[in-house]
């Protein structure tokens, strides 16, 4: 672990937070009949799959899970070289009239979620869209808030939140450390929607 970095959530805590969110989703959607979970790549996707497994365990209900890549909808495309696309997989049956729960690891400026809402508009017409995040680190730049939050984590802009998951990184943890200034970045603030938003 680099200097000054500390774990703010460990594996069991992440699991407990996801179990709680799964129950909250079932409660708010009155049993989860119409729910479709859409993870935002890369780490939102395994989180969405874990939520689906928990919902199935609690309510014996198979919830459709997909992934929604938002790269082509970002508002900062011109600020960096073209990036590789993630996967978009919409579950069979589409999104029309479903309650779509977007799932991401960190909620930061809100720009990723805005892009996801734009993408959803091109893919179908959900009855409602909700947002679930593992960590809300604050510093919103748009009027967006999450419906389900694993942990509210007050941070400074000079800090960096990193989520590690078993599926993508080999272990579960949420780390808080000093931000690494990006070459050519105009201020201490990392590029608005980079990675962990």
């Amino acid at each position: 672990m680099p200097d000054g970095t500390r774990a703010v959530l460990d594996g069991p805590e992440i699991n407990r937070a996801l179990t709680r969110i799964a129950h909250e989703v079932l409660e708010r959607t009155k049993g989860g009949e119409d729910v479709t979970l859409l993870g935002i790549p890369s780490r939102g996707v395994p989180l969405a799959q874990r939520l689906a497994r928990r919902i199935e365990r609690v309510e014996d209900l198979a919830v459709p899970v997909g992934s929604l890549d938002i790269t082509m909808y970002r508002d900062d495309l011109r600020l960096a070289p073209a990036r590789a696309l993630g996967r978009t997989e919409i579950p069979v049956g589409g999104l029309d009239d479903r309650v779509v729960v977007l799932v991401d690891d960190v909620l930061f400026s809100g720009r990723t979620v805005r892009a996801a809402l734009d993408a959803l508009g091109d893919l179908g017409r959900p009855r409602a869209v909700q947002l679930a995040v593992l960590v809300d680190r604050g510093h919103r730049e748009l009027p967006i808030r999450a419906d389900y939050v694993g942990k509210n984590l007050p941070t400074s802009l000079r800090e960096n939140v990193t989520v590690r998951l078993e599926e993508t990184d080999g272990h579960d943890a949420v780390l808080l450390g000093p931000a690494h200034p990006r070459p050519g970045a105009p201020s201490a603030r990392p590029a608005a929607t980079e990675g962990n938003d």
Partner: protein
Amino acid sequence: MRHLLSTGDLSRDEATLILDTAEELAQVGDRSVKKLPTLRGRTVVNLFYEDSTRTRTSFELAAKRLSADVINFSAKGSSVSKGESLKDTALTLQAMGADGVVIRHSASGAAHRLANWVDGSVLNAGDGTHEHPTQALLDAFTMRSRLGRLEGLRVAIVGDILHSRVARSNVLLLTTLGAHVTLVAPPTLLPVSVHTWPCEVSYDLDDVLPKSDVVMLLRVQAERMHESFFPSEREYSRRFGLDGERLGRMPQDAIVMHPGPMVRGMEISAEVADSPRCTVTEQVANGVSLRMAVLYLLLGGS
């Protein structure tokens, strides 16, 4: 990557990135809203000095699906027919603020020259008998989606290699991606320098057919032939044309490709052209996704 002038400039990673991006973008064609906001506010100029409805509309559709503004500029009926040079046309486009220029020209190297004169990205859509990179990329994309891999694939490219920019781009790209290419043609339709290309050469189609996973037929480009290269169409067709009988001698899952336009009865029989193993229409559909990928990777970032 700023321009796409030759498939020879692409590393294996870059080529794979383009193919992977195209695979994701192929989904857009199946949606009810076939549009992404990615290139909103960007301008793409289709600069076509040679007629080509297929390639031009493919590029136009790709740019429009990414929300770019598209200007079609064909040499016929433009200031080119009044004598304007390529350089002056390029500077005019530059002044109009083109972010990307797609150029098709009858002179080999025209795209390279253009790249020196404009600030935007240049996409080579076919220059003379030199290269046609997006065609080779969409061919590789089609092979990968039909056969599941490119590494170790045996590809035969058959016909008018001499006048074919498609053949040259394909040889360079497929070799980079790990496939083995064999060119099959009468000696008169092979370029003098073919021994320097990273591929094998054969004069006998029947010998190569059973060993090929892909047979790519090329159109005999009569419009570029100012002397005779083979005795008669009938003889060419008998020795290098693909008919049902020859198709039967290819491996069970081997596919037949053609960059179009096809001349039925000469390089390909109607029976083969209409067979489900022939990927011509798939290649056209894949062309749009592939060109979206290239436009995104060249113009989408900073």
